[in-house]
């Protein structure tokens, strides 16, 4: 077997092992290219392709190795699983990254790894790959690297100076679930590197004020991911956790990954369980409301209704329960109020603010601004006029009208994956980028 064939086989095994990681974004870093060197980074992120599951492909997402010392129940790479194993040489992976990058296949590298030997040994190999890319090839593209919990602090620091984004996967939404399914990991073990990265970024911000050319530590911030549906936590618990992570750990993104049964275990859902894609989708919608629309987790869900409504998107669901907030007069309402109207997004809210300075807005005009009247018309007035004649203070009536069409009624877990296409976060990212307004 020649070496090229070898790289091909490794690529197949190690991308297959990495594909369950949701994050593939290349956003939040703006770095112009350097004359004569390879690469740049665009703050909006760039999707280079879309996989058969509709997810954006932006980075070459691979593991350094899938040989693992751990035995986490939910994980395909656990030690006791019989699966083909492979390991990239740092040089080999750096070469592959650059070859793909030159052909504009990718925006950069997403490097994760199973724990090979010890966390430190694993980290050193990853560090070597990044070192070759950044310091030998002067590669200025995007690099997202996974922090390996339990690795030495100085190694983490060095990785952070070469990478654009770092992430530590929180894996499961509670400590109990962790104990049950990933006994070698613990909440402390995961939150420690997370807080170190946060502190590193904070410290770096001070350095950057003092020295313009101070090396930048994780300029793209950190993200995390948790698996949804493998354990019994409700949506409220999950959203509260996310909210905490955004506030306390200044995370840029929390990713949710619908659990896909890959291994049979008595602690896990059966192998023929469908991944809860609709639930994942609703969580992403709610997550968006937390980050860009000024909602809090407690506003969206309460102890009485601890789960998101599968039939209604979370914003509609909130609006229906709060008739006292509506209708909103589009010609006068402040930005924050507009944002809370179903059918008005960040982009159209900004357009409304802008356009109403020049002229009074009517329903026809709103359509031109991109407002979805199908939803918004029940919640707004234009110059005091309301378009619909329905009882908008009757939650049940409204909920019935606004319900997502095409979803089966009353099903316990309605699975219409096509629904995802409308609001997939990658699309939102693209919109965000094009308008440059966020």
């Amino acid at each position, binding site marked *: 077997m020649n070496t090229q064939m070898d*790289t*091909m086989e490794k*690529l*197949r095994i190690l*991308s*297959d092992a990495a*594909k*369950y990681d949701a994050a593939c974004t290349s956003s939040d870093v703006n770095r*112009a*290219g350097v*004359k004569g*060197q*390879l690469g*740049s980074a*665009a703050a*909006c992120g*760039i*999707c*280079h*392709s*879309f*996989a*058969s*599951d*509709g*997810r*954006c*492909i*932006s980075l*070459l997402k691979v593991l350094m190795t899938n040989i693992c010392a751990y035995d986490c129940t939910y994980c395909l790479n656990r030690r006791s699983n019989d699966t083909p194993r492979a390991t990239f040489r740092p040089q080999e992976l750096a070469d*592959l990254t650059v*070859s*793909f990058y*030159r*052909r*504009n*296949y990718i*925006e950069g590298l997403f490097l994760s790894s199973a724990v090979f030997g010890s966390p430190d040994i694993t980290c050193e190999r990853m560090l070597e790959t990044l070192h070759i890319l950044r310091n030998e090839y002067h590669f200025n593209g995007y690099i997202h690297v996974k922090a390996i919990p339990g690795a030495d602090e100085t190694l983490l620091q060095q990785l952070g100076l070469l990478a654009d984004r770092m992430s530590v996967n929180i894996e499961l939404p509670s400590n109990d679930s962790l104990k049950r399914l990933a006994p070698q990991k613990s909440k402390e073990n995961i939150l420690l590197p997370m807080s170190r990265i946060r502190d590193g970024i904070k410290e770096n911000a001070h350095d950057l004020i003092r020295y313009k050319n101070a090396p930048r530590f994780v300029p793209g911030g950190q993200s995390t991911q948790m698996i949804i549906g493998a354990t019994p936590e409700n949506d409220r618990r999950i959203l509260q956790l996310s909210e905490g992570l955004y506030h306390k750990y200044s995370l840029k993104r929390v990713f949710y990954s*619908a659990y*896909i049964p890959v291994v049979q275990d008595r602690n896990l859902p059966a192998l023929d369980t469908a*991944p809860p*894609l609709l639930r994942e989708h609703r969580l992403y919608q709610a997550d968006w409301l937390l980050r860009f629309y000024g909602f809090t987790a407690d506003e969206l869900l309460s102890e009485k209704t601890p789960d998101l409504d599968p039939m209604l998107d979370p914003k509609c669901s909130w609006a229906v329960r709060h008739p006292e907030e509506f209708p909103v007069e589009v010609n006068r309402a402040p930005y924050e109020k507009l944002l809370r109207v179903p059918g008005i997004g960040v982009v159209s809210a900004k357009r409304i603010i*802008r*356009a109403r*300075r*020049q*002229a009074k807005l009517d329903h*026809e*005009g709103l359509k*031109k*601004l991109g407002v979805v009247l199908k939803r918004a018309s029940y919640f707004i007035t234009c110059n005091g006029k309301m378009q619909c004649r329905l009882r908008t203070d009757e939650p049940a009536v409204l909920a019935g009208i606004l319900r997502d069409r095409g979803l089966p009624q009353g099903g316990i877990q309605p699975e219409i*994956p*096509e629904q995802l*296409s409308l609001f*997939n976060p*990658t*699309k939102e990212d*693209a919109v965000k*980028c*094009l308008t440059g307004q966020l």
Partner: protein
Amino acid sequence: MSDRTIVMYYYDGTYNGFLSCVFESFAEKETPAAILPVDEADQTCLFGAKYIETDLRRAERVRVSIPKKMGMEAQDLLERAFFTCMPEKELRMLEFMRLGYKVGRGVCGRLTEPAVDKITKAVQFLEREAHLYLGFLRFAEYGDVLIAQIEPKNSVLPVIAPHFINRFSGEDFMIFDRTHKLALLYKDGATEFLQAEHIELPPESPEEEKFRAMWRTFYDTVGIEGRRNDLCRRTHMPKRYWNRMTEMRDKV
């Protein structure tokens, strides 16, 4: 302004040519029923049409008036609108300018005005398509040169050029727009735009097919079968892009 005479303009298809048409329209106090680039004008309907000579001095007078009267944003919008595939873009741009001279700097904010709405939407389409090409464009190596071919609806090449020049400043590369027969050449740090009917590809580098195969392998592996969603994929990556993409060609 009198609209009584039915008159048509045709011009050389350049931005300066268009600005000369705008000058003519104002100087003669007439609103043309059509403004057509000469290569698109149907010879039979050129009866009574005026050919507007590109006059750089007139064009310049119009050009400087735009930011002065209606702001930088309007200038930017108009320059981009010229790259779009909007039907009758010249007339739409003229309408926009008429409004701009009348109402001044607020013109871009009048998003519900038809003249502004049309041009804004067209530019949004251009920018969306340009953004998609930042990702979907694929280079292949021929000798030491990277070559990519695109088939956009809008003339995106001038919009995406700065991105690729910045990112691949150490490489020699060419991007050929097959729709608009326009090539971007970047060699030894110098940029050039050329009109070309077609391009002749030099022989491929021997390694090329290997990297293509590896990229296809990666692509086919990374999708999760349990989450397969063709509609979602097509929404984000419409099929018209597929035949120029290494990993999608065999799936068209």
